[in-house]
């Protein structure tokens, strides 16, 4: 009944602290421990840690039937720690358990000097190290714009939104070019928890309800996305990379970060310090929402089963009575009072969402949204719920004012207006709860 990782630790740690002199690896009982696991507080030696880390991801993959023999799957590779660890682990597991999968690294070149050009060098080395082909698609070739140019035009505010919209489509197009229909990304448990919190804080139940799914398929995209590392702690990903001496790139995007995500991230890390299980608890809470959110509420978002981003594989949510039995379900034993408070919260969120729909999105009426049909973007042909896809809406505004680029000496009023226009459009896009699924985690693919 419990989600994959809770069953993954091969041995449960002795809860009584052992005397220092006899303290040995909780798994092999032979070597000196070097790692204290975040999830279980088990103390493990390096070889046991590496093995168990891999085994848990293997169990996540097999218990959700994520891959089928003969699949060709793209790994969204940024050169950062998460996707590097993902590629290394998938390579290891594919060899060890004979998955029979062909993996290809798929990288997006956003065109950010001093950031992406360096990290792409890392990806190129990874391709050699893991014996995987590498395909790079660039914003420049797809959209005619690099992110450097976008930022030069619209400033740093809101560029993450542009980048996110562009990246999503770029990954799809890269997958299309490769002829693959499945892209795995390096999102980890900390990312999941962050996103659950953000959606909770925004009162965005529809998105909350789907952001934790391990595999998302959307009719607005021909490509399925999955997150094999969704139960892996960022701490352990970094330790795995460190102890295996993996080659990864670790510089922050020059144009980041989104302030709200940064705050959610800091909160998650602070919680982890006090209570390491908190991260997985938040992820599990997010998963529980899938079962708890009534259809009327999730229906505020485009919710036609056939057109919505549908979580295809979900760990079965534990029934409330059994939650107490699950040692990892720390929230299982909460009192009825908290439940009532939670339900109240749900209702308030529902109201908030309705208000938001009416006040901020007058042009998209609920009725229309419920009947939304998918079409192809009139400009680029990409699947879209609107006449123009999000990327083309952004591009239209960018291109309108492109002529001014490079010759401007200072920002005149027209330029300011152009910036405002793009910004407003982007804000509208962010608010538009369209069928084009956006789990809110795309910012770091």
């Amino acid at each position, binding site marked *: 009944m419990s989600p994959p990782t809770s069953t993954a630790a091969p041995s449960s740690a002795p809860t009584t602290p052992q005397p220092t002199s006899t303290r040995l690896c909780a798994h092999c009982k032979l070597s000196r*421990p070097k*790692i204290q696991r975040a999830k279980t507080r088990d103390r493990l030696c390096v070889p046991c840690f590496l093995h168990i880390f891999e085994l848990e991801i293997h169990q996540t993959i097999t218990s959700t039937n994520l891959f089928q023999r003969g699949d060709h799957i793209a790994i969204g590779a940024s050169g*950062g720690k998460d996707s590097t660890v993902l590629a290394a682990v998938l390579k290891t597991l594919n060899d060890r358990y004979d998955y029979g999968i062909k993996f290809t690294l798929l990288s997006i070149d956003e065109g950010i000097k001093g950031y992406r050009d360096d990290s792409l060098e890392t990806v190129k080395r990874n391709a050699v190290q893991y014996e995987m082909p590498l395909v790079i698609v660039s914003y420049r070739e797809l959209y005619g714009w690099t992110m450097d140019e976008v930022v030069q035009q619209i400033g740093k505010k809101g560029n993450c939104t542009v980048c996110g919209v562009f990246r999503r489509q770029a990954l799809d197009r890269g997958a299309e070019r490769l002829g693959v229909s499945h892209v795995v990304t390096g999102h980890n448990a900390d990312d999941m928890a962050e996103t659950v919190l953000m959606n909770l804080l925004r009162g965005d139940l529809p998105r909350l309800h789907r952001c934790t799914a391990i595999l998302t398929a959307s009719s607005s995209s021909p490509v399925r996305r999955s997150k094999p590392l969704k139960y892996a702690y960022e701490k352990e990903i*970094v330790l795995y990379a*460190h102890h295996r001496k993996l080659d990864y790139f*670790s510089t*922050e995007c020059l144009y980041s970060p989104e302030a709200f995500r940064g705050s959610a*991230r800091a909160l998650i890390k602070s919680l*982890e310090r006090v209570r390491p299980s908190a991260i997985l608890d938040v992820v599990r809470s997010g998963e529980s929402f899938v079962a708890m959110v009534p259809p009327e509420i999730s229906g505020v978002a485009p919710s036609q089963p056939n057109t919505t981003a549908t979580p295809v594989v979900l760990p079965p949510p534990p029934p409330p009575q059994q939650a107490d039995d699950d040692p990892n379900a720390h929230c299982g034993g909460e009192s009825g009072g908290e439940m009532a408070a939670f339900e109240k919260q749900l209702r308030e969120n529902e109201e908030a969402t309705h208000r938001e729909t009416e006040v901020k999105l007058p042009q998209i009426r609920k009725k229309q949204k419920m009947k939304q049909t998918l079409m192809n973007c009139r400009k680029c042909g990409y699947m879209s719920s609107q006449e123009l896809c999000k990327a083309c809406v952004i591009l239209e505004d960018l291109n309108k004012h492109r002529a001014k680029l490079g010759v401007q000496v200072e920002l005149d009023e027209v330029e300011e207006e152009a910036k405002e226009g793009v910004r407003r459009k982007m804000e509208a896009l962010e608010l538009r709860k369209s069928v084009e699924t956006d789990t809110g985690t795309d910012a*770091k693919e």
Partner: protein
Amino acid sequence: MATPLVASSTSTIPSSTATTGQIKVEFSGGLELLFANQRSVTLPLPLPTTTSTSTLATPPTVGDLVTYLVNTAMVDPRKELFVVDGAVRPGILVLINEADWELEGEEEYQLCDGDTVLFVSTLHGG
């Protein structure tokens, strides 16, 4: 790196069990950017701290090292990216001789000659 200004006084403390020698401090995961792009620095023991509040009789701890790093060694003004509320920022892992510092007593760990302390950020890029 500054020379150990207090080193001479070490000998004047009668019960000095303070370790002398040196330790290696490493930065990775993006933290090196806060330390003038150095991935590794060697520091003498006792630590070359100018405001020695810690008694020289006891060996410096990792806590002392963090204080030294943030007050003296860190050139980047954004101290909050390394230390928050007097403690290592959440999301930064500390490894003492390749082991999680949770296994070694965290800030309390007493540094010895030849130790390697690694600070690695988990907060950068995915």
